[in-house]
């Protein structure tokens, strides 16, 4: 360890020299690794955004309960009380026709003009029920049994679809991470082997002078990390630019989608890409070193 710190400057200088000797191959490797990481980053950011949307939707989960329109005010009040007594319900409130109409005007924005085509308010009053999403199955069963309930509209289908999408993205993500890992390791280990071949005389001299393998291998390990971190930084710049651009485009036109903060996504991406870069750099270099040793 003492030798490591006293020779750190030497190791970095050596790694730079090894990089310079095969400059073009190393540059192309960084570009390839950058593009590979970029694909992975896109999938990761898609997964994180979807996950965040589902979390928001789950927190704000609500059910709209439509009742018999002939029901009178007292009975509606009683129905609300019964609803609120069900386990897993956080609150229930009556939304009358006018409020229903105004909400739709807010959602539609400029397109709300279409509502002017109706002679009368087309919306019915309903009871808005805020729920704990994990209790949704029990709540739905119990609500349907209540007197006067005509129809229960839930967002379960949308949430389920989102969850399915996340499951698919997670699976694709795992596959892509595996593919990225293998591709990166192949690229890095190939470059390391090439570096070892180019420096074989120097390595042989060091062996004859009694240098341990760790001393000989460290500059190559650093080179591998330069490559993957370089690729990672490139991927991060691309993906950060793309996220900012996409938020600028989508965020303004789809205000009702609860997108997570872009800065949070970008920060998470930075940590994710850099951690993977360092990990794959080390594994790829060690793989290259051990395979060269076995030759």
């Amino acid at each position, binding site marked *: 360890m003492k030798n490591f710190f006293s020779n750190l400057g030497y190791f970095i200088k050596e790694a730079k020299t090894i990089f310079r000797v095969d400059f073009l191959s190393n540059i192309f490797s960084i570009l390839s690794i950058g593009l590979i990481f970029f694909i992975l980053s896109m999938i990761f950011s898609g997964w994180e955004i979807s996950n965040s949307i589902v979390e928001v939707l789950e927190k704000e989960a609500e059910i709209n309960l439509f009742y018999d329109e002939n029901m009178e005010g007292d009975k509606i009040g009683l129905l609300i009380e019964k609803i609120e007594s069900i386990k897993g319900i956080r609150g229930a409130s009556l939304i009358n026709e006018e409020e229903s109409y105004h909400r739709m005007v807010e959602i539609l924005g400029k397109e709300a003009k279409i509502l002017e085509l109706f002679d009368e308010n087309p919306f019915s009053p309903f009871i808005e029920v805020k729920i704990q999403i994990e209790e949704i199955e029990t709540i739905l069963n119990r609500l349907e049994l209540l007197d006067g309930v005509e129809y229960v509209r839930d967002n379960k289908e949308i949430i389920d679809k989102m969850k399915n999408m996340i499951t698919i993205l997670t699976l694709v993500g795992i596959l892509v991470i595996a593919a990225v890992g293998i591709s990166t390791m192949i690229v890095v280990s190939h470059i390391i082997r090439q570096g070892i071949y180019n420096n074989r005389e120097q390595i042989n001299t060091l062996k*004859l*002078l*009694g240098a341990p393998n760790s001393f000989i291998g460290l500059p190559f390990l650093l080179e591998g990390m330069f490559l993957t971190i370089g690729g990672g930084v490139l991927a991060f710049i691309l993906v950060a630019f793309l996220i900012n651009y996409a938020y600028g485009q989508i965020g303004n036109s789809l205000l009702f989608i609860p997108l997570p903060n872009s800065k949070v996504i970008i920060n998470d991406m930075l940590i994710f890409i850099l951690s993977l870069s360092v990990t794959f750099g080390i594994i790829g270099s060690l793989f290259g070193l051990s395979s060269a040793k076995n030759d």
Partner: protein
Amino acid sequence: MIEAKNVSLTYKDGTIALKDVNLKIEPGDIVYITGPSGSGKTSLLKLFMGIEYPTEGELRVLNLPMTKKEEANIRNLRKIIGPVFQEFKLINGRTALENVVLGLRFLNFSPRQMIEEGKAALIKVGLGHKIETLVDHLSFGETQRVAIARAIARKPAIILADEPTGNLDIDNAINILDLLISLKNKDTTVIITTHATHLLEDINEGTFIMVNEGNLKVESRGEA
């Protein structure tokens, strides 16, 4: 320090390099290994460094058996050997000092000690004025001296110099030989191979090993 008992070395292609070698080298000895090209001098040094292993017999260097099984320990043993290779094995594109210091980096020297020892070794071989010169820009004789400086900076127990006078003119060859002889002391054994027997005619102290077709003839002169 070095003891060979009935050591033979036959290469994989069947070439017999050394036959039934018996010798004992004590600490502080100076040993000259001579013989024509291809006689087995370099093979003997390769055995001492653990680059090759005896195919028969037993060889011990600093009490370590030189066998494949001891590969890891042999790598450590090399840390206390100062080799001067026939083809120098210096790193081009680096200065004389960088080359010397490279041989010290994995030994127990502090960064400051490495520089100090490196400079002292280069001054000792007469290259104090070329410390920062790239080895690519040095003459043949100077390059040879950098290789010697790299060996002595390590403060080795054994200096192994393979044909250090090869390809040098007579004056430079004598200077290099004198330099190597001056390195011998009670802690440092110096082993030199050379095919230039005429250079050894006036030397009257040391162990002289004549190698011919893999056979050794040992002669001692003077106190050594």
